[in-house]
């Protein structure tokens, strides 16, 4: 996972799929990233490398979303693959995640 | 009145009768009669005729005369049904009164045919006492005999019961 700050936008790029196997590690890292960039007003979750998201992965994303909500940061998922977009669509998360 | 149609002469129990030839379908010789237990006395039994079952009647019983033994069984005059009469090119006027099912009368023998144009006389008084009057058209003198000319349509009249009486209320099937 990489986090880069571009202006006020914090971009989090995930290395691969968001699965129960790596969610556990990612969580504290995401938290750290947010803590390290208190001035960010927008968070882009870059899912370019993410093909599969399972329920834990979703859980993580939602937790991230909630965390952003708490911090008044707008959340957006970008570079979403067609499958993931479809998944978000089924779960009615598309608009919430700001997916285009 | 004069007859329009030929008449068939026949004998039953020492009486001579005549009826319209056109009403007769065929004459059976010595038919095999299946007696029906419990049938009204006018019915002598059933006869099998080429796949159909015909009801054989006793003529004297129908006319109201005593039906003495020996019972005639030599010949059976089979009558046309109303449907068969109506199918003729020139059906008799009272064809609808004929029987709807196959019936016939058992007689001793048949004899001559009386040509059309013969005069039918009204019966002399007392001559035909005991006979149901609606069944008789009149008489014809032949040789020394008085032949009773039957009103065939009345014999198997659909509307009335064989003996005119008050309607039988128990006629409905229980």
């Amino acid at each position, binding site marked *: 996972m990489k986090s880069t700050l571009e202006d006020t936008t914090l971009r989090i790029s995930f290395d691969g799929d968001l699965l129960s196997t790596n*969610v*556990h590690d990612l*969580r*504290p890292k*995401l938290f750290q990233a*947010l803590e390290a960039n208190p001035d960010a007003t927008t968070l882009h979750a870059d899912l370019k490398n993410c093909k*599969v*998201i*399972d*329920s*834990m992965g*979703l*859980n*993580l994303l*939602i*937790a*991230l*979303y*909630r*965390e952003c909500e*708490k911090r008044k940061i707008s959340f957006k998922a970008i570079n979403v693959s067609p499958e993931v977009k*479809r*998944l978000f669509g*089924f*779960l*009615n*998360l598309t608009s*919430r995640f700001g997916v285009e | 009145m004069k007859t329009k149609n030929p008449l068939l002469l026949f004998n039953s129990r020492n009486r001579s009768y005549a009826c319209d030839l056109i009403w007769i379908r065929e004459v059976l010789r010595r038919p095999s009669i*299946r*007696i*029906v*237990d*419990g*049938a*009204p006395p*006018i*019915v002598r039994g*059933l*006869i*099998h005729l080429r*796949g*159909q*079952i*015909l*009801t054989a009647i006793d003529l004297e019983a129908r006319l109201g005369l005593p039906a003495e033994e020996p019972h005639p069984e030599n010949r059976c005059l089979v009558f046309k049904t109303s449907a068969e009469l109506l199918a003729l090119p020139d059906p008799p006027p009272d064809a609808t009164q004929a*029987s*709807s*099912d*196959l*019936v016939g009368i058992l007689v001793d023998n048949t004899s001559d045919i009386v040509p059309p144009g013969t005069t039918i006389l009204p019966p002399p008084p007392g001559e035909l006492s005991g006979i149901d009057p609606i069944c008789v058209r009149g008489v014809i003198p032949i040789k020394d005999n008085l032949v009773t000319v039957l009103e065939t349509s009345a014999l198997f009249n*659909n509307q009335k019961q*064989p003996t005119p009486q*008050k*309607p039988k*209320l*128990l*006629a*409905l*099937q*229980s």
Partner: protein
Amino acid sequence: MSTQENEMLALFIQEAEEHLQTLDNDLILLESNPHDQEGINRVFRAVHSIKGTAGFFGFSGIVELAHAMENVMSLVRDGEMPVSPELINIFLAATDKLKIMVHDPDRSSEVDVNYELSSLSRMLSQEPAESKASPESVLPSYLLQFNIDPIIVRDGLRHGRNFFVLELRLHADIENQNQTILEFFNELDSLGDIIATSTDVGLEACTGLQEEIRPDLICSVFFCTPMEDTLLLGAFNLPPSTITPVPKEPLQEWIRTQPKLVPSQYSTKHQIQEEPTPPRSHQVHESKLVPVTQAKSRDDNKLIPTTPPSQEITPATLQTRPHQPQSQDKTEPTTNIQSFRIKTEETVRLNVSILDTLMNLAGEMVVGRNKLVRCAEAGLGPDSIGELQAIVQQISTVTSDLQRTVMAARLQPVGNLFGKFNRIVRDLGQKLHKEIRLEILGEDVELDRTLLEGLSDPLTHLVRNAADHGLEPPEERRAAGKPPVGRIRLAAAHFHGRVQIEVRDDGRGLNPQKIRNKAVERGIISAEAAARMSDQEACRLIFMPGFSTASTVTDISGRGVGMDVVKTNIEKLGGTVDLESEPGRGTAVIIRLPLTLAIIPALIVSCGGRRFAMPQINVEEIVAPGPDYPLEILGGAQVLRLRNELVPILDLAHILGQKRTKEQDQAQRFALIIGLDHARYGLLVDEIDNMEEIVVKPLGRLLKGVPWYSGATLLGQGDIALILEPAALAEGRLPQDGIQDVEVTKSQSSISQESHAQRILVFRDGTHERFAIPLSVISRVERVPSSRIERIGSKECLRQADNRSTLQLLRVANYIPVTPPPDYEEEVYVIVPRLVHHAIGIMASEIVDSADIYPGQIDSSVVSAPGLLGTATVLDRLTSVIDIYGLLEVAGFTQQNNETAKLANLRVLLAEDTSFFREAVLRALQHVVAKLDLANDGEEAWKMLNEKEYDVLITDIEMPKLDGFALTERIRSSTKLCSLPVIALSARDSESFLNRAKQVGIDHYETKFDRDRIIAAVLKVISQQNE
């Protein structure tokens, strides 16, 4: 016009008429269920189909009317117009007009439909329904979370889909089934429409990244599918708690509140076809011909959907025909069809399976014929006869099958006819301002087509009559304590080979007195004759010509169309009509249609040298009376002991009044055990021939009055056999009101030991006290309505069914000191004892049970009255055991015999092993003779006879060790005892026994066990001896 065009037009008319028939029924159903979406769809489809095919032929009149109906129905289907009574009325009126137009389509434009069209267009321009409920409040709360697309909901409702809310835990419910979330949703999506989903992101537990991510995400799905919930759960292995069905009514309401919807512009997957196949929720027999007559019943579950009509007559299907009809070009048809008239009644619809059977049979016929040809060509040989017989056998079978199949092809379910009455009854109800409900039973019963056609008019008249005259208006019904909705029931049933059709109403019933008066008024009968008639006979007067009980002749039941016309019409079909009526309760007209036009299996028998046929359906078994199945006399009537029961015997020769010779009566005869609805009996005939399939021919008019025959048939050799009517043969000759077969133990006829148990019948008479009578002395138990008990002086009597004998009834309480019973309820049991001289019956209010009792059980120390043997504990209750003969004595049924003085010096030995009958003799003679000794069996009797002096021996026949016959033989061979008077006392009265008794030298054989007879018997033998 070509034949093809004729055929097509005929097909159009036939199908359109079918559509219109079901349309009628569907509209009526819709009237009671205005929210039934499936019903609405059916009406829409029917109208749409008629419009389509009529348009194809260019019948513009039909098209215009059907189109207007379709437009209105479209609004209803979308929920934008409610189903109102007004709508139903207009649609029914329009349907009627369509029927007229379809009947003669060439002239359909001439039919005036202005009223219907303007009514329909008025409905179209009306504002949508007023219900301005706020959209959200209409929906159930659990749907409020969703963003619902009304178009999908509308489409789902249109197609009769089911709506569910699924609550799914993403991990526990989905991933645990070894699938990804995406896979699951993809599959779910393929099974229906996911209308909306909602994933809860505001989980209490998940407030951010700080906590461990533990809770499972829950996604709610609002789903629409043709599947049932159980199927859905099964498909995904979901627990039932995940699914909540959503009722359709709130959705429909909600749709109505939505602004006018445009046609779906959804993705291609959801493209709604105009007329998809309706869901097949039940198995449809594939063998049914397409198109299929819709079998309709009151229970919607039985509805067998047709394949959508629009798929039938379309240009596509017509292309399967070899020649293109000219009318393919739509501008052509009208001119060609003008002069064409079709009689659609001449065509018939057949079940494909019958056609298949006919094909097979035709094939078998060909095989048989070929064999015959070969046989003839081969000439006569040693095997010819055998071969010929085999071929004849085969051809015979095929011919029978052929005949049967063709007959079956003519059969139609009576429901087709009955179904028409839904509409008629509904209209009648409206017209007469009465609430009428039509019940239909037995619609599957099949009848020959001619019979069905012939029934149509009479049934219509009867139904109209029932509605008009039979049923009362709602206020009158309420005042009489009846439900306001009157019922008319059309029922069909098979009843012993006949078909019975009933038109029954629960209205006023017939008024016999009013009918009598009317009949006298009309000169149909005289006043005296009317007065003499029973109520039942009086009611039948309405069948006489010139009769009408209506005080005003309404246009509903018609002028001059009377019940006599109904009767004549039914009789033309060979059937009969009868009436049942109860004032205040209703009337039923019962039509029985004969077996004509039928082939039935029958048993051919002979009696009096004549052959008869008994329909197989009535024959339970054939029995040869003899030692194994003995004939006995009971209460003056002949019975057959058939294993454990007694079956009343009727002699066919006797019923028919045949003259019999002695040889005929003494020859071995046969009993046909006949099973009727409420009775069984044995019919005695002379010979049994064989079983045959007979063609039923009706009897001529002159013989119709003879009730014993239901027709005649020709047997193989040309013989005529009369077909017997088993119910009529038994009429008035069997006990009525249901006989309870009492299991008669063999204690009379078999050897019973003292130590053996006796079967007793336990009963009550009003109070809780219990009584018992040995089964062996019971002839039968009858259950009788109390109304049939008559009082003559101080006695109560029951007249027997044959009106010739009367049972005098005894109440135990009158003779034995027990608590007197309260008055009897509706029914009373009458226990008729056997072997008793007098015709009596003992009344009981309840038969408790039968039980076993050992003689030692009876405690006679407490006996307080004659008529009781004692008390015993039976079935855990104290029971008083009745002494029949004592009871009779107390009841005054025996007379004091002055002659008994002559017996005062007699010494009598009684050889009897059964205690109950020993008692009888004891009581009879105990105080009459000087000495009365008892022996338990023949050996003991023989011993005692040799040891002591006796004047008379009374002996049972069947005893252990030495039976009565053997004992008597010994006595007659003994020098000492050879002139001893011997009286045999036994229930067995068969000829063989009586003969044997005479043979061995028994002086008197007595079968009745009452006191008088016993004393008389003793007197007789004594006086004989003294001569």
